[in-house]
């Protein structure tokens, strides 16, 4: 491990940080209240170069290392988590999916506008019926009987950027073509959302309120032939890992922001004749927060570094996400506790961060889903649900009848007897 400052592009990170703090951060509270990303934010993101941070030079990126990428993410997420989600979902996740699964030449027409900020992307996976259980997904891509391309139909829900995106990478079932060998059954479809047959709606959400979130409806929407990429289902987790990484960094940034806000508050708020910060109980909470944030951040740097070097490390990221996101919930909880009722008062940063934190525990695969994946990666056999009786084999299903004086259970009355 080499953590020398020279291994990170510090000028880039410092420049992003000062730009975001001078603009986007100042609008974070208003963005949360209005429930949308302010127009100026998007222009500032474009000007800052943030949208190009995560990509190699060949496709118009900055070609920086993984730790620099993680630090750039953190700078934006600390300024405004809602803006961060929207922008990073578009350039990092959609950008990576298109550049990894698409064609380098053909799909520049999709990548270029995403990286320039002219267009916004969404990654549409989840449907109304279930979260990560792909068995319930119904959205289907099939050959257009009247043309050269495909048609997509179905509904995706609880999708970041659904209300305003120009392009969606959609995980969909891929209908086999009549007479052909069965395909993998799944595909990524790059769908232009600015055309007839696409409908969309907003969905209310607890935190990250500035982030656009909602559903997409596809009614036989045409998709170009080149924009449908058949993928085996296991590829899906590989692609998702980019999302787990950026969500983890959002939690780390959010926890850091809450910790700094809390240090400020504890140093000035006087109670019982001394600043809160002089109380051991408060100090212990701050110290635990510091340790947990550091742990998550270092693992995020390591994962991001390997990933940018071309290694999958998707198990490592699957471990990071539950830890980092649950950590942020603990840290913001402690921050509220130390702020007292100010922590529950709208307008205070901690109140907002406390609502933002749980979003990341759920979004892009829940913690429990990822723990399952990690266990599976250690060779723990996984299978679909099997009907199972927990208690009958143990005898624990029986009520404790027959103890002296018990009225909890009595021997069953003979049939036909009345009480």
């Amino acid at each position: 491990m080499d953590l020398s400052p020279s291994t990170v592009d510090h000028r880039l990170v410092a420049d992003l940080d000062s730009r975001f703090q001078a603009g986007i951060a100042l609008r974070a509270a208003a963005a949360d209240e209005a429930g949308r990303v302010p127009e100026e934010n998007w222009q500032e993101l474009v000007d800052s170069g943030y949208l190009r941070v995560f990509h190699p030079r060949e496709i118009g990126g900055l070609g920086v290392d993984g730790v620099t990428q993680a630090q750039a993410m953190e700078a934006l997420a600390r300024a405004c988590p809602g803006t961060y989600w929207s922008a990073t979902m578009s350039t990092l996740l959609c950008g990576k999916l298109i550049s990894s699964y698409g064609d380098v030449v053909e799909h520049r027409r999709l990548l270029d506008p995403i990286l320039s900020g002219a267009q916004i992307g969404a990654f549409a996976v989840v449907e109304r019926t279930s979260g990560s259980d792909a068995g319930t997904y119904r959205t289907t891509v099939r050959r257009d009987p009247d043309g050269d391309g495909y048609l997509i139909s179905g509904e995706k829900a609880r999708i970041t950027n659904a209300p305003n995106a120009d392009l969606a990478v959609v995980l969909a079932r891929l209908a086999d073509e009549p007479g052909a060998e069965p395909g993998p059954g799944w595909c990524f479809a790059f769908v232009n959302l600015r055309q007839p047959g696409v409908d969309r709606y907003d969905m209310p959400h607890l935190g990250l309120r500035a982030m656009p979130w909602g559903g997409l409806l596809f009614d036989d929407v045409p998709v170009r032939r080149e924009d449908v990429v058949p993928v085996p289902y296991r590829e899906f987790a590989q692609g998702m890992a980019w999302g787990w990484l950026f969500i983890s960094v959002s939690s780390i940034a959010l926890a850091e922001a809450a910790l700094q806000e809390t240090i400020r508050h504890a140093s000035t708020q006087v109670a019982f004749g001394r600043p809160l910060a002089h109380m051991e109980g408060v100090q212990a909470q701050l110290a635990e927060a510091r340790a947990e944030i550091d742990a998550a951040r270092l693992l995020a740097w390591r994962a991001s570094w390997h990933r940018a070097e071309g290694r999958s490390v998707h198990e490592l990221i699957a471990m990071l996400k539950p830890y980092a996101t649950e950590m942020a919930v603990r840290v913001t909880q402690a921050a509220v506790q130390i702020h007292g009722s100010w922590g529950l008062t709208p307008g205070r940063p901690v109140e907002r961060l406390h609502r933002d934190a749980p979003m990341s525990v759920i979004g892009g695969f829940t913690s429990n889903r990822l723990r399952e994946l990690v266990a599976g990666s250690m060779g723990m056999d996984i299978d679909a649900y099997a009907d199972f009786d927990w208690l009958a084999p143990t005898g624990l299903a029986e009520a404790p009848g027959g103890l002296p004086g018990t009225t909890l259970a009595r021997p069953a009355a003979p049939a036909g007897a009345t009480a």
Partner: protein
Amino acid sequence: MGGAVPTAPEPKEPRVTMEFTFTEELEQLRSEGRALASLVPPPAPRSAPAYGDADEDVFRAVAAKGIASACLPSEHGGRGLGIAEACALWEGLGEGTGDAGFVLALSVHALLCAVPLWKLGTAEQRSRYLPRVATGEWAGALSLHELEGGASPANLEVRAARAAAGGWLLSGSKSHVVNGSFAHHFLVTAVDDHGEVSAFVVDRESAGLSVERGTEGGDVLLLRDCPVPERALLGSAGAALRELLPLLTAMDSTAVLAPWLGVMQALLERALGAARGAQAFGRPVERLQTVRFALADMRTRCELSRDLVHRAAWQLDALSEPGRQEAAVARLFVTSAARAVTADADRVLALAGWLTDPVAERAASQARRLGATAGGVDAFRSVIAASLLGLG
């Protein structure tokens, strides 16, 4: 809205309400039970090895294989490993043995005693001790209380007085000494009449020095007007808290801590091995979701701990002013992780039918001791908070 307030109909049977009182009769029964406890003897003194206990032969066999010499410079017969390299070696020792207590005996010799002798020792002390320290021939010992510095009352119990004939007279005792039964020398801090703390390296053969087995495990070093020469002073007089303690603390949060990375990994492998093929509630243990979650969390804690220890080690190797906050963060996090991992291992092993597992039980009791040494989690939190808040 007007109208009569509806009234509940009269119950046909007496109403049953909850009862929160403890009747006199129940109170007497509780007293009766408490009184019977006088027939039950208190728990016997512990018979299991203490944290840091090592069999001398095994200790010497391992120490001689490049462990005792690991962190000493080549001019004194050492391998010249940096802290990050030592962490890797020590992590392997922990993973291979699964015994953090045994590895602690090696750490006390090769890290906590040898490194201060090198860093703080005079040319004479270095040439006298280090070659035979590096081979493992002369074993070093110290009390785990030394890691607590001035905060521990235990460290005030050895007094140092200037002797009329030159040198010093040491008197008092230190408990929880590691390697006490076979050590050649002891690293001891003592308090002088002005309340200043000095460090000494005291040879076993010194008059007035004896070692006893402690009642809580570990050895007790007894010093009865033990005369030590001027050359026994390690570092400057009165400067141990400034010179020695930061060295001990830095190693305690890195290479001395690193075996726990290995022990946690070994426990994870053990739990995985036990879960595979075992049955509980009539189905394979490896398919119980709560077991799967516990195993995933164990592995996550291993990975998180590793980065924090490596960062603290890298700082010691590479920075002129390594941060005390980062070291304390590593120590705090790994200490909590060790408790959590040993608890998870216990649960998975029990479900798999390994109701008594000596390796896991030993690790659990050692993890408890890890949390109590060097001031414990409260001290680590204080260090972190002081640095966050710009206090102290």
